[in-house]
């Protein structure tokens, strides 16, 4: 692992669904399960709402990683929104590779309303992977390509 620049803190955006992952994250809070504070979450009703453009916007804004998290397959509050979101992830990941971003910077997970411990684990994993990858090339302060954005 290359040395990360001094002062850099991962900037990670999470877009999570109201019914499962947001509730799971709340449950982790209720249970006081501690995890790193590097992720900022935006709530949507369903991961089906996640426009690929939101993810691309986050990366061009300099996000080091993006996490999309919804219900398990078969558990979607809206039947199949998570499934459609998951299918879009393949498209977005290939776009990321095309612009030279490591596709591990985008992750989709499935965390139910009863999986507080799993939510904490997901955040730890995402933060660890981001630490391993270092700042995004498009990171506005630390990225190699910051002049481009």
């Amino acid at each position, binding site marked *: 692992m290359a040395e990360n620049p001094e002062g850099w803190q991962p900037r990670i955006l999470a877009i999570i669904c109201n*019914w499962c992952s947001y509730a799971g994250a709340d449950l982790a809070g209720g249970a006081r399960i501690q995890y790193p504070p590097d992720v900022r979450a935006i709530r949507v009703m369903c991961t089906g709402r996640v426009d690929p453009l939101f993810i691309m916007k986050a990366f061009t*804004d300099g996000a080091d990683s993006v996490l999309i998290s919804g219900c398990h397959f078969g*558990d979607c509050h809206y039947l199949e929104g998570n499934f459609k979101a998951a299918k879009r992830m393949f498209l977005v990941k290939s776009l990321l590779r095309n612009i030279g971003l490591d596709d591990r910077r985008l992750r989709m997970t499935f965390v*139910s309303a009863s999986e507080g411990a799993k939510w904490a684990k997901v955040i730890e994993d995402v933060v660890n992977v981001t630490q391993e990858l270092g700042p995004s090339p498009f990171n*506005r302060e630390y990225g190699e390509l910051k002049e481009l954005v």
Partner: protein
Amino acid sequence: MAEAVSPSTSEKPKAPRIGVFVCHCGTNIAGSIDIEAVKEYAKTLPNVGYVNDYKYQCSMPGQVTIQDAVKENDLTGVVVAACSPRLHEPTFRAATKDAGLNPFRFEMANIREQNSWVHMHDQEGATQKAKDAIRIAVAKASLLEDLYPKSVPVEHAAMVVGAGVAGMQAALDLANAGIKTYLVEKSPTIGGRMSQLDKTFPTLDCSQCILTPKMVDVGRAENIVLMVNSEVEEVEGYIGNFDVTIRRKATGVLSPAEAEAKGIVGGGCTGCGDCAPVCPVTKPNEFEMGMAPRKAIYIYHPQVVPLLYTIDWDSCVKCGLCVEACGEKKAIDLEMQDELVKVKVGTVILATGFEVFPIETKEEWGYKRYDNVITSLEFERLICASGPTGGHLVRPSDGETPMRIGFVLCAGSRDSTGVGKPYCSRFCCMYSLKHAHQIIEKIPGAVPYIFYMDIRSFGKAYEEFYYRIQDEGAKFIRGRVSNIQEDPVTKNLKVYVEDTLLGRPMELELDMVVLAAAVQPTEMTNKTRKLFGVSCSTDGWLLEAHPKLNPCGTTTAGVFVAGVCQGPKDIPDTVAQAEGAASAASIPIHRGEVELEPYYAMCIEEKCAGCGMCVNLCPYQALSLVEKDGRTVMQVTEAKCKGCGTCGGFCPGGAIWMNHFATPQIVAQIDAFLLGGEQ
């Protein structure tokens, strides 16, 4: 993309002025987050016109500070940085409304559940995260618009799925409150698990004696439409208007009413039982845990409601002897087909119960390998006067009366080995104490040995019952049975256990061992919950909307839970929850209308290319293509739209406006986070 304007707004809105209210929540938030720093930071944010903090923002005085600030500072929106919107969004929306603003001008920043509680020892990180969360919330609040919830009428009918004691109680309560109630049960009779029990703890009431009158009440209640041998097949709609398709399985037997409808005057099944003796096929009776026979045309037991015979198609050979025996009543139709029935209901209660964990998977205890190792439910049938042995407890191996009987508690419960269940099944301690009492009472000289981890006798008069059983002479051995071995000749059982109070291994020879097996959700529970969009916990039990404050509700509005399908509980708790669920389910029905969140999609027609991709993505058939001014554009049927936004996430032209989660609003949140508040 960022300058898209909602199709509902015609005039230019006034410049946003947002009020930010930071809650301490006592020390819940203030203990980990520097409130003063957060407040000072919020003042520097664009569009922020007022910032304040309060010890408990959700308290009445806290809400009043919001109302006063909105009026005095001419605010256009409110941001409260406090707990989760899943907890207090309704509270603060109401406060925003009381302040004279549209309630949807409110946005919440979660700095408790997803911040101070999970970064308790990192004040710097938590404070930075809180600042970001407020910046993100202010960015969204600046773009929020007035929205108006729609009122829809509520169908004056309810449905209860599962007719055990929970479902029966809920259906009776609803029916007595004047609501037409469809009670759907998959087996041929109502009554559920409770009807299989002999006595109930701690009062030692006869289970059947207290249950059968309730079953009869259900059977004759005017407002209850009883649908046995039936399963929910399809669900459409939303609170107030669920369209449910029910599969009524062919029973092969006509009720008197069905016979009359077919023009058979005075016909139909009267439950006389002339058909069963002539049936040549014999099968194990599931109600007796397979310990008694039944025919291919059968009833489980004489008290079934409704009293109608049923044909088991898997074993029926269609010889027609039963048709002959039935004679003039012409109740039997061997060609009967399943029937799909559609009903419309306003609210639904799920009461789908439980099943016994397959305890044979715990191989060390030898269930299904050793004749004299049985489960507690089998014990209930053997000790019950109406059971297969007329209430005489006998060893399955030789029919002898057992004198030394072991009870293995936590059999598969509180078991983290991976084979069992990690949770406590909650009623096994108490029924095992009851079993011990029953053998002491029925078999003079018999000795019960109870192998336990802890005795959990937490209910009203339960602890006293425990002491009573101790006094009656039951032997309590604190330890987990490690192994059971059968003597191949006598079929007696060698039980190996460590007495953890004496700290030494023990070896006992017993005549019979009863496993207090764990309980688990049924497969049907999982199937049904998915139809209604109800979540479950990792153990598979249905998830209540809030474990403390909304124990009967679910995340699907209008769907409630009762009984063990929500988690193991004894009969008093089951009945109490059923009454709670019935009360909750009757509220929208009695009110007559319900407000739906206005999160539906709208089409920005100038941008819509009429490609129709969204139409196929919608799981609710809410979108369609229409001709308008010579162009094809998408149209939303608002009542069908549930606001998931799957269409809006896909539209290649950005032509779909998702109320409250519109693209410009979400992009503003992303920008606010990553560009540090620049808009």
